[in-house]
């Protein structure tokens, strides 16, 4: 029998594939105005209402990276950026589950590119959207006197990308294990809220330690705390190496779990089919 010659896909083809996936995510984001607006309004509500209400309740002492006393709005701004990324990661995950239920996931999965590459592209597409949203938020937050040094706006970019990758990869893992769209709301409650509240996003952890040592440990181990601190330090031109290491480590673990979850032999596709 004659066999066809195997021609590996050239690097340029990989680049085109990734660009196409990112472009599609961008188009969907632009078309889904509700998603765009709510992603911006959510942190602004926290900034304009929650922070205003709590600014005199929660005093913030001088802690790194800040060099002086800061208003509460300034303290929670990095946490709100991390929240944008967390919601965006979960939103991407939701759209993966939706795509699967609607069938469009199959289009992605029958592409000749390796599955890990397709998932990575999907992840990067989500991160690109999250980074743009974060900068728009930073632009608006300037009017609340959240004015990090000019270098901070540049230095925060790698932090945004790293934490976006971690939270997006977490979303991918979740999407690979969730069978139906209806199950998603419950998981959101069990992931988003605990991650956000048990972190340094809204209050410095020394305050948490005063109340509960156990909770302080939970907050310390929560990778969302690391994402928040990475962004916080970067915004003031500094690097929190420990947080960076945790974020990179978690990204690798979550991504490996997502690739395993989307493996046709083991993950969701096979399990879901069994249910049909």
């Amino acid at each position: 029998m004659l066999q066809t010659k195997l021609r590996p896909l050239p690097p340029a083809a990989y680049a085109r594939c990734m660009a196409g996936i990112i472009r599609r995510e961008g188009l969907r984001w632009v078309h889904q105005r509700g998603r765009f607006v709510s992603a911006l309004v959510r942190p602004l509500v926290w900034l304009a209402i929650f922070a205003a209400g709590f600014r005199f309740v929660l005093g913030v002492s001088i802690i790194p990276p800040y060099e002086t006393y800061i208003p509460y709005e300034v303290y929670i701004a990095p946490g709100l950026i991390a929240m944008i990324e967390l919601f965006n990661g979960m939103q991407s995950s939701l759209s993966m589950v939706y795509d699967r239920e609607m069938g469009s996931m199959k289009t992605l999965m029958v592409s000749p590119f390796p599955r890990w590459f397709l998932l990575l592209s999907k992840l990067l597409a989500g991160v690109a959207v999250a980074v743009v949203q974060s900068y728009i938020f930073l632009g608006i937050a300037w009017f609340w006197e959240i004015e990090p040094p000019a270098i901070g706006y540049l230095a925060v970019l790698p932090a945004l990308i790293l934490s976006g990758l971690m939270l997006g990869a977490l979303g991918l893992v979740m999407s690979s294990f969730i069978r139906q769209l209806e199950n998603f709301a419950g998981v959101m409650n069990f992931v988003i809220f605990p991650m956000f509240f048990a972190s340094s996003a809204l209050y410095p952890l020394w305050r948490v330690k005063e109340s509960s040592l156990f909770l302080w440990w939970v907050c310390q181990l929560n990778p969302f705390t690391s994402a928040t601190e990475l962004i916080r330090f970067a915004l003031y031109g500094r690097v929190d190496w420990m947080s960076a290491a945790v974020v990179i480590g978690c990204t690798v673990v979550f991504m490996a779990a997502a690739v395993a979850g989307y493996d046709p032999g083991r993950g969701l596709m096979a399990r879901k089919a069994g249910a049909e």
Partner: protein
Amino acid sequence: MHEPAAALEIDGLTHRFGARRALDAVGFRIRPGEFTVLLGQNGAGKTTLFALITRLYHAHQGGIAVFGQPFRDAPSAALARMGVVFQQPTLDLDLTVQQNLQYHAALHGIAGHTAAPRIRDELARVNLGERAGDRVRLLSGGQRRRVELARALLHEPSLLLLDEPTAGLDMESRGFLLNHVRRLCRERGLAVLWATHLIDEAGEDAHVVVLHKGRVLATGPVPAVVAQAGGAQTLKDAFEHLTHAAN
């Protein structure tokens, strides 16, 4: 002399979901330029077979070869030569026809300048050239199916798989799709696997694979399958005879 490789060769393919055996030692082959109808009632295992051929699930037992290359050894090469129209609609309703096709071209690594004329030509062939800028949501069911067919051909596959492509379509749309795909077989030498439960979609010149409860009951050109059913006059008679006997 070497025999040209089969476009698709399935050999002893068995697949289980838990204790349930969805496919049982399925085997058949499709040659280039051949229009093959995979005939089976709902639940016969057609969609499972498609999912295995397209790598949505792993094939644990049995073999799948695309143009002589075992799928397991080179899934990327196999998928690159395959165009697929799934039973479930897979277009993004919020994007335009053009954007959907551009996305598909990107998923196959095709450059924009190569994709643009192909998109124009394929859409023109399915009479949708003027709808390229419309959102898919605005198209009828039949038009969406035609877009999916145009999309499946963008990367110039040699093997086309269609899973119940006419489900839910009116007679005119059904006829259009069927004629278009048959023409592709003749003109481009495309090998086609067309899964359906509608017996009349297999013309007299088609090859047929009768799949029932996960097993292949008969395979070959229509007259040969009719003959296998002893006493049957039509493919419909033969199908009923074979499936009743297997129950």
